[in-house]
């Protein structure tokens, strides 16, 4: 079971990540579920009717604009990293936070590794489902790799040059 880091702490929450409609039958009613965008678009109402928590996950090629209107109703929005080198998720996160104003839990899933955590957090992720081989305890150190950042980002909208002059 992959470990979940939330707000820089390891938490034990049980979430089920669905891939297709076939996975719906085996769902326990109380489990939190993350539905892929396509499944959400066809089975959203049924998923909402369950007692458990519900979220949607976007793949790296999917446009966050497609869920912009529903954002406040999700318990979680996740973005999948099919490979750690696929950097589209960083832009998706910033768009969700900065353009579409999403304030709920934003979770990175998939090929999520220790050495990405700080950039992911700066782009707006606050939850990280680590790849199963990762040492979660050691990974927490990654948030302190760099104590500052030059640019504007979701986590720190004011770039260093404005803070330097303040």
């Amino acid at each position, binding site marked *: 079971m992959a470990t979940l880091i939330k707000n820089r702490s390891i938490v034990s929450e049980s979430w089920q990540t669905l891939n297709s409609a076939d996975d719906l039958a085996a769902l326990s009613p109380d489990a939190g579920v993350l539905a892929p965008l396509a499944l959400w678009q066809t089975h959203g109402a049924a998923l909402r009717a369950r007692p458990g928590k519900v979220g949607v996950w976007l793949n790296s090629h999917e446009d966050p604009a497609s869920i912009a209107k529903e954002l406040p109703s999700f318990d979680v929005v996740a973005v999948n990293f099919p490979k750690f080198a696929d950097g589209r998720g960083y832009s998706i996160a*910033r768009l969700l936070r900065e353009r579409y104003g999403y304030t709920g839990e934003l979770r990175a899933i998939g090929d999520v590794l220790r050495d990405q955590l700080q950039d992911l957090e700066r782009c707006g992720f606050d939850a990280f489902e680590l790849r199963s081989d990762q040492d979660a305890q050691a990974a927490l150190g990654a948030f302190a790799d760099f104590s*500052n950042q030059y640019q504007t980002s979701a986590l720190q909208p004011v770039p*260093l*040059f404005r803070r*330097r002059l303040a």
Partner: protein
Amino acid sequence: MYIYDQIDQQFVDERVAQFRDQTRRFLAGELGEEEFKALRLRNGLYLQRYAPMLRVAIPYGMLSSRQLRKLAHIARTYDKGYGHFSTRQNIQYNWPKLEQVPDILAELANVQMHAIQTSGNCVRNITTDHFAGVAPDEIVNPMVWCEILRQWSTFHPEFNFLPRKFKIAVNGAEQDRAAIQVHDIGINAVRNEAGEIGFRILVGGGLGRTPIIGVVVREFLPWQHLLSYLDAILRVYNCYGRRDNLYKARIKILVKERTPDKFREEVEAEWQHLKDGPATLIEAEVERVAARFTVPAYETLPAQDASLQAALSADKAFARWHQRNVHAHKMPGYAAVTLSLKKSGVAPGDATAEQMEAVAELADQYSFGELRVSHEQNLILSDVKLADLYSVWSTARYYGLVTPNIGLLTNIIACPGGDFCSLANAKSIPVALAIQERFDDLDYLHDIGELDLNISGCMNSCGHHHVGNIGILGVDKQGAEFYQISIGGSQGNNAAIGKVIGPSFAQEEVPDVIEKLIQLYLAQRDSEHERFADTVRRIGIEPFKQHIYGNAHKESQHRQRELANP
């Protein structure tokens, strides 16, 4: 020289600590090969043919004598006593040990240097004009803008995993000396009618497998918007650039596939959301960065110097060097001096630790302790008094740094090639050396006049062969090393991509082919003022093909015509 503040220093120190830990985890087996690769590349570390290769950034080509001494020290302590200056204002070491690289990075951090983002699919070291800050035709000092962009691009959290590498060049003068038309983004300072400073933005230029000249996406971008506009371009690229095919992943392919107009629309639409946001630059920041640059304490001098004039008439070798290697300066009584790393018999761009130390000494004595590295792989003393030129020449001559060939055929730009690089199809250095030897006669070389010759050992085009007046590309032909020759390329304001003249040649044939190209040029030029590139432009490449391939060429053309119109 931009002097780091405490925060700038902290970034590079923390980077050393981060990479030290990553290397430790890799050596302990806690970090996989592929994951470590992405991390080490972002610190300029390749695992090469014989040993790792470490590429160190020389941001916008600016170096202090103290930094150059450190580079010499690293060459001597961790390498085999030399370094290779690349075509993108970096220095490469070919023999460091993986486990020592964190120590090398720590040494660099001590002199405010780093290897951050010198490789990997991220924004690379930002390059500029090698006469930045001293050129007479400058609109802005591009180094100030390069430093602003260095900070913006360093650990940019959103753009650390782009589809492919991303190269930006900035030019601050009227004459383009930064090759902005062949970069992913090219930025040129311009003034509008109201006299305000802004930038012309080009996107999608590049060499490599698909050489393309960049297209203008904005004629005038007010300087305040530089960062937000680049964020918009990078975001469009990050989201939509191709990730399915390594060879189609550069932004030039996206611009081409989308069409420049559609791409521009997308960038503008993205920018509307970012424009006037917190990334908008402010006067105080530009002033702050500019003020952290050292300013040479120039003396007020006359524009001419009598001792220089006397030395020029007395010493022919010095006069020849002065003609090619000494360049105009914005301050009267000063000049910029190119120290050539293109001596016959030495790999282009290589410098020994002794040479680096000698140049550092020269810089201290004659050039306010500062120098530049050029994309043509030479070193430049940026601020030398005219009265000191003869002394500089005399000392530099002792170290083999005064080959009077800047702008001439033997100032060959070449990548390390198959001798070092695991990507190369063919060797570059022996070809460069053979050509330099062939054109060793200085009178002949000067008679041929201005000519850029570039050699790349493979399609990655690190030797920028596409924009050489003569370009040589190493190709693999059934396992053997061959060389394809193109002519008609150029860099600068009229950048052009060269055209291949025909089938490729074996290594030993290359000097003869170059000689033949030169013979035809000398026979055809309308005067000695018409440069090789001008002649090619005027008469086209056909006469050159004919001269090289003779009737075989005509026959094959004939056959092609027959095939096309049976």
